């Protein structure tokens, strides 16, 4: 492997975007959760729901701060490190980013202030509007960014003129073939992650017998919502699988470890793909399942990696294992939610410490699963930056190697510090829990007060 600007730029972009993804993943779900809880509070005026809103809003705010600063980096890093790529696709992707900022970022930022600090400055209904608008903003933001990313996977609606991509049909660009299933997949991944974060933290309170009333309602809602979103995710995940095989068969080949094109292929529970020998070692397989999953037919045909030359293949090991981690964790989430449903139906949701411990244990795994899914999608697209059209190697900026070394070190240091302190403060918030003050608004002073306002 040669250390060059391209490699370091890719490491840097992968690192910074992988770091960034964690925060919106939590907050897309958290914004939805807060919208629902605040709605329930407005309807019932039950102070526990108010406490739920206040407490999770602090978690949301902390997460949002890190999400914002790590997101700004990306909007410039595309240009600094992938100038040739951005020059070619500016007419297509630049517009989608502009729409993302106009329709989503400003909306989120504009109403975040009211949502976080406006509890006693605007009426409860107006505050609820602000919360809803922030939630809508996070969801629209994911819409545009997933559309842009999906266009890189399945480009459509363009013409290639003198090395530049020119849009011929905007509808086809935005709603490119892979967009809808991938967007829903991402949103649901976010909901699943958030459900288990909330359930895990609530389970911890319940294990410690702290804030019991508060924690039970959070736990009940999160475990209840988890069964809905994990089941939906099984269906959407399946739809994404079909879509990938249809539009990017080589990605499917890497995900499933298929070297030779064939029919009625088995699903590999475990294997070590060996790109040198172009075969898998130590296979454990379930017959017919790969064909069934990816084509919905037992004898469905799947394209093999050997159908293209080695330098047109993704790095199989990465895609293969990332895919298994994502799916494995997804199934674990589904089974846990199912277990919760079963306990609830028997009236024993709050009777078992082992279930609390299980929920606590898996609460951070949604992030691992989301990251693994993202690695599957992006590594599986390689060596292309625009699938089958432009190679990643042809997209990098021409900057001096040492400059990228400097930036890479700076980002490692900065994000390392940010991540450590984010976790410290997150755990501190969780440890403090919903304080008495947050239950009764009148006792909770705002972070600052004003003079001379009538």
């Amino acid at each position: 492997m040669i250390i060059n600007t391209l490699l370091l730029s890719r490491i840097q972009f992968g690192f910074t975007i992988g770091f960034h993804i964690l925060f919106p993943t939590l907050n897309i779900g958290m914004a939805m959760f807060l919208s629902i809880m605040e709605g329930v509070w407005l309807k019932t005026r039950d102070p526990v729901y108010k406490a739920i809103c206040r407490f999770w809003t602090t978690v949301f705010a902390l997460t949002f701060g890190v999400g914002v600063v790590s997101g700004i980096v990306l909007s410039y890093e595309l240009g600094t490190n992938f100038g040739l790529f951005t020059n070619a696709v500016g007419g297509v992707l630049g517009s989608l980013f502009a729409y993302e900022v106009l329709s989503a970022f400003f909306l989120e930022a504009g109403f975040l202030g009211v949502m976080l600090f406006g509890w006693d400055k605007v009426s409860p209904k107006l505050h609820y509007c602000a919360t809803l608008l922030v939630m809508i903003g996070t969801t629209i933001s994911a819409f545009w960014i997933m559309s842009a990313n999906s266009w890189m996977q399945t480009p459509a609606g363009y013409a290639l003129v003198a090395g530049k991509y020119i849009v011929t049909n905007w509808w086809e660009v935005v709603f490119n073939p892979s967009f809808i299933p991938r967007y829903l997949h991402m949103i649901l991944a976010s909901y699943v992650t958030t459900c288990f974060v909330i359930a895990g933290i609530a389970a911890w309170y319940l294990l410690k017998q702290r804030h019991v009333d508060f924690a039970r309602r959070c736990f009940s809602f999160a475990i209840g919502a988890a069964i809905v979103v994990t089941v939906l995710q099984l269906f959407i995940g399946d739809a994404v699988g079909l879509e990938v095989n249809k539009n990017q068969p080589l990605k499917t080949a890497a995900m499933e470890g298929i070297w030779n094109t064939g029919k009625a292929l088995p699903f590999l529970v475990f294997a070590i793909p060996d790109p040198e020998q172009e075969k898998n070692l130590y296979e454990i397989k379930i017959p017919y399942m790969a064909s069934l999953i990816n084509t919905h037919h037992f004898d469905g045909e799947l394209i093999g990696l050997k159908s293209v030359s080695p330098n047109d293949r993704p790095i199989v090991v990465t895609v293969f294992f990332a895919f298994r981690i994502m799916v494995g964790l997804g199934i674990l989430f589904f089974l846990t939610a199912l277990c919760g449903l079963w306990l609830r139906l028997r009236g024993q949701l709050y009777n078992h410490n082992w279930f609390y411990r299980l929920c606590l244990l898996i609460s951070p795994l949604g992030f691992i699963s989301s990251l693994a899914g993202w690695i599957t999608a992006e590594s599986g697209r390689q060596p292309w930056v625009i699938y089958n059209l432009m190679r990643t190697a042809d997209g990098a900026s021409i900057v001096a190697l040492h400059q990228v070394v400097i930036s890479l070190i700076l980002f490692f240091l900065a994000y390392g510090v940010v991540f450590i302190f984010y976790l410290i403060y997150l755990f501190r918030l969780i440890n403090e829990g919903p304080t008495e003050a947050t239950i009764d608004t009148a006792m909770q002073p705002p972070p600052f007060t004003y003079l001379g306002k009538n």
Partner: protein
Amino acid sequence: MLLILVWAIVISFAIFMYVLLDGFDLGIGILFPWIKSHQERDIMISTILPVWDGNETWLVFGGASLYAAFPLAYSTLLPALYLPLILMLVALIFRGIAFEFRFRVKNKSRIWDISFAAGSITAAFSQGLIVGTFVQGFGHSLPVNASAYSWFTPFSVMTGIAVIIGYALLGSSWLIIQTVGELQERMYRIAKRSLIALTVMLIIVSLWTPFIEPSIMTRWFSLPNIFYLAPLPVLSGATLIYNFYSLNKRNVQNERLPFLLTTLLFIFSYLGFCISDWPYIIPHAVTLWDAASPPSSLKFTIVGVIILLPFLLGYTFYSYHVFRGKVTQTHEY
């Protein structure tokens, strides 16, 4: 043609909004070293707590619009400004996280105050380096040598310092509106000193710029341009003097005046910058017309701008309206 011009105006507007709004945010961080009390720092930061994130969104909008409307400029300028941009982004990270993190520390630890101040100063300086580099340009034709350190010259270092001072002035005049008593008193004094320093910097920059690039000299000093453009420096001078007067007089009825005059000063300086640079988007090398996206993209995106920009300006204003008024004390968050 018209569409390209409209886009150039939209991007110029976005960049100006960023400079103005994040300018006073960053200015507050720049002033931190001069304000030692924890309580006063709390008040200062509280005046921007609900709005900073929206202010910084203009930076993302500027970047995204440049990418959408002038991809050639986006993909040429950003690598050419690689290190100052990365420095700015990393500084903005340390500045941005301080907003949330400093309310979480126990026993009044100052670590995030330092992070906030250092981040703000570094970000402002990097932006100044970028402005200076923009005036200098990268030569008169493509390709731009992205590995050169053309952004690091005496001129760009000076514009870097000028931007720090300018933001300090914006920040202190913002705090004049937002605070009372002793803190406001100090802000008046700091604003006055910043204004003096900025005046010196503006004079140096204005005199130096024409010698950096012959075309800028021609732009300003050839006939008949000199007559058309002369009002700009005259108006800037008048605004400077009026601002001194307003800071000296401290009209309680009109505490917004210094901030408005400083804004006006930024508008004039920005216009001067645009006039010097016109019609280039990659300075002195590529014009707006040569770097623009295909018409299909310009049209598609301008629809969004026309529909959404009034709305977002509306709710941005609403947010400022909700959190208007003087901040007098802070509590644990």
